[in-house]
């Protein structure tokens, strides 16, 4: 029983590896989307799930990464492996610039400030036509070469995304089990006590916000090359809400939950296709139900069931 | 008048009260003594309905009020003046007093006599009528908290540390007013760390330790009982 998590992990990875062979092209496309979205969700897990920053603008940072990649590849002719690091850097730098003044703010101030940033980003993306292509967005973003091997079609991109998700998940897990992860969770649990336990609260908050944005940038860069077309509405405030809901659904302080949440919420419109136009309304109700029924998300729910089960066994 | 039987309260794993029983008869003033963390405040909060008891029962005038909401307990004449006064800082003194008439005031019912009664007890409040709650000094805030409670026309008054943070002279003045209120026939249960003051108004007292009643008796007996001193100053 002790090795159960490891067994599960191997099973999940194995099925993720063989999935492209068995699922339809359409589902493969969704799975790829779910994978690179989950990178942004893991980023939000660091900022919101652990550190407690109510971050309602993750989509804007995905957008910065996507536009940076798209503009540099289409205009300057650079390849993905050059633009991707630049995209990360761009999102991270923008985050750093706004983090220091914004993180003096708490709770709803931060939420509204980041929301305002998201809306401003949309306005700029729509109207700075020369740079961003305005409403029409940027088309014909080139595919990715991997050591001269063209990663084309969904199958190749699926494995590329999976590779990055595994790297990011490992990064997230390592971070969680280091002093940085501890400090972040300490800040969310009790900021005052974290300070008196020698945690440098401001520095860790800035770090969490910047890391979240760097991961969003990676997610955006992958998105741009996968979709080969980006437009401002891909990064609007509503998208930030979706990313947040993915995290809450999966379990707000768990890397695995972030991935699970983004997979479920990416496939949900398909699963609920019979609802037709009602899907979005149901989506709103779904948010409320998750908040009311299982505020700790799927992972949190499973953990509490396991704890109860273990308790029942030790008592019985 | 007020009867508490076998009351037990826990906050998660911590037991705050463990089988506390006490009774206050009509018109009586009873003091509740004990050190920090003994469970005095929890007891008052349970009586006024803010905290749900795990076991035991509270009854008022012989009728159990256990399921009743705090708002409805006020309507039955049970009013709790909470620790640290908790006046409404953004309401004026007059508004603080008027707002407490919500339980009984219907259209047109006059509050003038009730206001007069409070202003007679606390003339300072009359002067301060238009001032905001936050601008009052600690002593004035305490007077306002007591005055506000009187506006709800209580038959039983629960008071939590009315002398907290007050200079000795002010605390004595507050206590002088409390004995006047007691003389008007209002039943009182008084939590206080200032033993001498509490016992100067109260006729009887209970000593609480770790959620248990460890001692009960007349004020005159308690004041000389070494156990009371121990509870505060240690052996």
């Amino acid at each position, binding site marked *: 029983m002790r090795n159960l998590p490891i067994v599960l992990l191997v099973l999940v990875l194995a099925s993720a590896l063989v999935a492209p062979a068995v699922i339809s092209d359409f589902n493969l496309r969704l799975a790829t989307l779910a994978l690179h979205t989950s990178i942004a969700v893991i980023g939000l897990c660091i900022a919101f799930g652990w550190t407690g920053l109510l971050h309602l603008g993750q989509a804007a940072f995905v957008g910065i990464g996507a536009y940076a990649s798209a503009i540099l590849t289409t205009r300057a002719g650079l390849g993905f492996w050059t633009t991707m690091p630049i995209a990360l850097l761009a999102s991270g730098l923008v985050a750093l610039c706004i983090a220091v*003044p914004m993180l003096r703010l708490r709770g709803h101030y931060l939420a509204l400030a980041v929301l305002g940033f998201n809306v401003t980003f949309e306005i700029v993306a729509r109207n700075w036509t020369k740079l961003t292509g305005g409403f029409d967005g940027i088309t014909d973003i080139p595919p990715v070469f991997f050591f001269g091997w063209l990663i084309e079609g969904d199958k190749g991109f699926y494995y590329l995304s999976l590779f990055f998700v595994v790297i990011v998940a490992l990064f997230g897990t390592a971070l969680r089990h280091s002093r940085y992860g501890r400090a972040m969770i300490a800040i969310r649990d009790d900021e005052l006590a974290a300070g008196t336990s020698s945690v440098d609260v401001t520095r860790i908050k800035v770090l969490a916000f910047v890391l979240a944005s760097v991961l969003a940038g990676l997610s955006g860069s992958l998105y741009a090359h996968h979709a080969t077309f980006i437009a401002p509405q891909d990064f609007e405030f509503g998208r930030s809400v979706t990313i947040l809901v993915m995290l809450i659904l999966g379990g707000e302080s768990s890397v695995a939950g972030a991935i699970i949440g983004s997979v479920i919420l990416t496939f949900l419109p398909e699963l609920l296709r019979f609802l037709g136009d009602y899907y979005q309304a149901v989506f709103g109700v*779904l948010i409320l139900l998750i908040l009311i029924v299982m505020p700790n998300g799927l992972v949190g729910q499973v953990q509490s069931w396991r704890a109860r089960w273990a308790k029942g066994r030790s008592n019985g | 008048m007020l009867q508490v039987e076998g009351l037990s309260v826990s906050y998660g794993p911590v037991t705050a009260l463990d089988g506390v029983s006490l009774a206050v008869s009509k018109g009586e003033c009873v003091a509740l003594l004990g050190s920090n963390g003994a469970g005095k405040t929890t007891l008052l909060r349970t009586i006024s309905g803010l905290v749900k008891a795990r076991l035991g029962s509270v009854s008022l005038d012989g009728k159990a009020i256990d399921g009743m909401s705090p708002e409805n307990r006020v309507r039955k004449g049970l009013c709790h003046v909470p620790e640290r006064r908790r006046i409404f800082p953004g309401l004026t003194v007059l508004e603080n007093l008027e707002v407490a008439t919500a339980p009984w005031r219907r259209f047109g019912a006059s509050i003038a006599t009730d206001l007069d009664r409070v202003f007679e007890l606390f003339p300072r409040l009359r002067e301060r009528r238009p001032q905001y709650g936050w601008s009052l000094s600690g002593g004035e805030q305490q007077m306002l908290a007591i005055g506000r409670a009187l506006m709800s026309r209580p038959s039983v008054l629960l008071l939590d540390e009315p002398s907290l943070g007050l200079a000795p002279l002010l605390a004595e003045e507050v206590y002088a007013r409390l004995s006047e209120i007691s003389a008007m026939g209002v039943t009182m249960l008084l939590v206080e760390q200032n033993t001498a003051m509490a016992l100067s108004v109260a006729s009887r007292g209970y000593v609480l330790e770790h959620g248990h009643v460890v001692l009960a008796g007349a004020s005159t007996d308690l004041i000389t009982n070494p156990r009371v001193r121990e509870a505060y100053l240690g052996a």
Partner: protein
Amino acid sequence: MSAQVLQLAINALAAGCIYAVVALSVEIAYESTGVVNFAAGQLVTAGALIGLSAVAYTKFNFLPAYLLVIVGMSMIGIVFLICVYLPLRRQSVLTIVIGTVGVGIFIQNVMLLTWGPLPKSVRSPMGSGAIKFGDVSVSLHVLYVIGVTALLIIGMYLLLYRSSLGRQFRATAQDPEAATLMGIRVKQLYALNWILVCVLSGIAGLLFAPMWLVDVTSGDNIGLKAFAAIMIGGFGSVPGAILGGIIVGAIEIFGAFYVSSAFKDALVFALMFLFLLVRPQGIFGERAADRA
């Protein structure tokens, strides 16, 4: 002042009035529950669209139609209280805030299903007439917006500061537990709160609808501007919300004319960021660090 500037100023005031009413609704919810209502924009749209249907239903009898809107919005407020606020009340404020986002999505899509995606034009009870003052032409609806807003603000003032109910409402907002101990029925006041919030947003919807075309997303932008208005005016201050709304209206109208109509909204948010940097408490507000 040239006629043109005066003309712009009047339009700015009208737009500002609408933002001020929405900001007032957000501010009331925030002061009494600590919750920032992210569904404000969708509630504005709901007011406009319910108004549209109600006016058609009553065959352009505006008074009963508007009463229908107020009843409808009150019902939304009560449903919100029972289905969202009360079940989530014990959790952190952040959770409730995310809950309001869910409510917004729900309302928006129910409206999409009911009214469809196409923009609609809405008539004003004042008709489409205008008055000319020299070179300045002011539509009757704009004057109506300013008048109704003034009445609303006076009405809210009387309700909150001159009535027994308002006293209880403010007491509950400041200290719900102490209010309970004074025999105030706190749940009823929470109901009043959410009814006020929804009705105010709904009235803002009725006011803005005849000025622009209405579709299911038109309130979103108004909600966002109302947030900016509160940040500028200062969280925790009713006069701040009203002043902030008018400032936002002015920046938008003058900015569109003198700077760029594409970036007029960006100007609003730029000012908001400037305030966050230099004076995070806004013009009148609480200190930003005080409330978590």
